[in-house]
């Protein structure tokens, strides 16, 4: 009986790993392979890593792609643009999401579920449609400009679309639930008596927030920030639809290298570099954070 259960458990655990290997590690390995290949005309547009010639086995690998992208400020700038976009939108999501999460967590259970459903409902429609909706709202003949003109506040439509502010708006709008939900998960477990206790001990509401509520919701803040920051670094669709030429973002550059320039090795090298630059600080942060949490438990 127990043996059977164990067998089941193994499969239970193994299935997601299988999924990861098939759809994550293998594609990643393929991308890595392309990133160290030499570019050439043809289909696929790179030379095979190994080729047989009269002299025997030949390895056609190069680090040239990496050297190239790190020597060109264009790529580095686009990556910094993406990091700055991710940082700004994470901070904004946190500032907007925290009060919402707190309010939802503090409300009565009956109302709480309705509020949660309201947060989740936008996910039922396509991500593309939601971003496109902003395009419609923000454009010159869009609803916002029409209302402002109608009210006499402006004479000419303001151009709100195709700049990096529109991108930030779209990103914050799209990723806000990813901040709110983990925060909510921690705040809902929060014992409200602790707020009363802190007040009772003489702490003003602001001090109570800084000394009690904030430190106890830190894991939620970290989780939410990760869920927003990491995907936004590689975000492609939102800058493509709402952004303009004022700032180029990393995701768009990779897309262009793949599909416009058909330079798969460069595009792959960009993707790999982006991942590596992001992954190591996050791993270090997570290790430090886990240590900190361990000390606190």
């Amino acid at each position, binding site marked *: 009986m127990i043996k059977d259960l164990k067998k089941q458990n193994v499969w239970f655990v193994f299935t997601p790993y299988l999924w990861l290997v098939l759809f994550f590690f293998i594609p990643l390995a393929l991308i890595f392979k392309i990133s160290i290949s030499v570019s050439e005309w043809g289909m696929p547009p790179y030379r095979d890593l190994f080729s047989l010639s009269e002299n025997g086995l030949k390895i056609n690998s190069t680090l040239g792609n990496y050297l190239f992208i790190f020597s060109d400020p264009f790529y580095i700038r686009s990556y910094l643009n993406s990091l700055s976009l991710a940082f700004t939108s994470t901070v904004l999501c946190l500032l907007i999401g925290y009060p919402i999460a707190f309010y939802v967590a503090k409300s009565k259970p009956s109302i709480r579920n309705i509020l949660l459903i309201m947060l989740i409902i936008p996910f039922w429609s396509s991500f593309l449609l939601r971003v496109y909706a902003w395009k419609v709202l923000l454009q010159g003949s869009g609803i916002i400009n029409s209302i402002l003109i109608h009210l006499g506040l402006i004479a000419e439509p303001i151009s709100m679309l195709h700049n990096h502010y529109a991108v930030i708006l779209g990103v914050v709008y799209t990723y806000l639930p990813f901040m709110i939900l983990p925060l909510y998960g921690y705040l809902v477990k929060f014992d409200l008596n602790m707020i009363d*206790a802190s007040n009772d001990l003489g702490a003003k509401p602001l001090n109570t927030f800084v000394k009690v509520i904030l430190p106890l919701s830190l894991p939620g803040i970290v989780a939410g920030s990760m869920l927003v920051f990491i995907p936004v670094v590689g975000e492609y669709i939102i800058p493509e639809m709402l952004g303009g030429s004022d700032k180029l973002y990393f995701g768009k550059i990779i897309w262009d290298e793949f599909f416009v320039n058909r330079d798969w090795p460069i595009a792959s090298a960009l993707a790999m570099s982006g991942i590596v630059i992001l992954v190591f600080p996050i791993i270090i942060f997570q290790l430090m954070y886990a240590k900190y949490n361990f000390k606190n438990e």
Partner: protein
Amino acid sequence: MSEPFLQIIDVSKRFDNVVALEKVNLKIAKSEIFSLLGSSGCGKSTLLRIIAGFEKPDEGKILLEGKDITKLPPHIRPLNIMFQNYALFPHLNVTNNIQFGLKEEKISKEEINHRVNEILNLLELNGLEKRKINEISGGQQQRVALARCLVKKPKLLLLDEPLAALDKQLRVQTQFELVNLQYKLGITFIIVTHDQEEAMSLSDRMAIMKNGEILQIGNPVEIYEKPKDKYIANFIGTANIFNVLNKNNQIIIKELNYEIKNINNIENYVKCLIRPEKISVKKLENQSDNLNIGLVKEVAYLGSYTKYLIDVNGFEFYSFMQNSLVSDNLQIRWDDKVQISFSETSIYFFND
């Protein structure tokens, strides 16, 4: 009572049209241990939260040493509350929990350290200073919660079910410790509890609450011996309540068909209470003057005393007998016939 320390005047509170408190009036003296006792939903916790400042009363005033504190926010009120679940801060260690409130006051670091050490000694928490809250036992947590309040030297300490989270043995010990502590410090305690034994053993005076109203205020003896009505009589301890008839100057306990001879004026009272420990039972041998014969329906041996459920003419009531006093009684079994006796001075008359 000269100048009352805390005065609660006509305080009412409603939550969505449900009455939580209805015109509550209360005067509490300095250095008193006062309990608010009632079953859940009687409004005792709401009253405590209003005194602490977490809730605003719809009507009425609260005066502390003559000053109106009704509108003061909780962080300014010179009183502290200990929560039922303690509400200790899990991200802080014992010392930081205790000095949390002091850091909000403008006090020098030396003074803070001095007062924290003082309270650590008083509550025997030495050696636990650096521990996290989840690394100490329930009893220790209770003392940290108490220390966190007392270190602020409050004028008034509110305790919400202070012993409910402790196991039974620890509870009895902690009861005595709390009383000793209060005696040493002279701080006024207001305790909310649903446990009548706890209220009886801790308080100087107590208020019995029901449906947002105070039914009776008095010291434990008064409340136990002279309950105002049937609800209180049943709520505090076990009550044997009988109907009394007054016929042609004959006063009769109806259910026992017993005539009270030494009392001739019971005014308009229609009920009487005889506490179980005041009724003694004896295995039937010979007749005595205020004799009644009953049938033993149940026997519960509880070590120091035994509970008997007695049936007289279909009416059931309890008798509690000290085992040390009457070892013969240990032989009383189910369905035995017993004679019942009680002193007429132990009869308490009241109305519904």
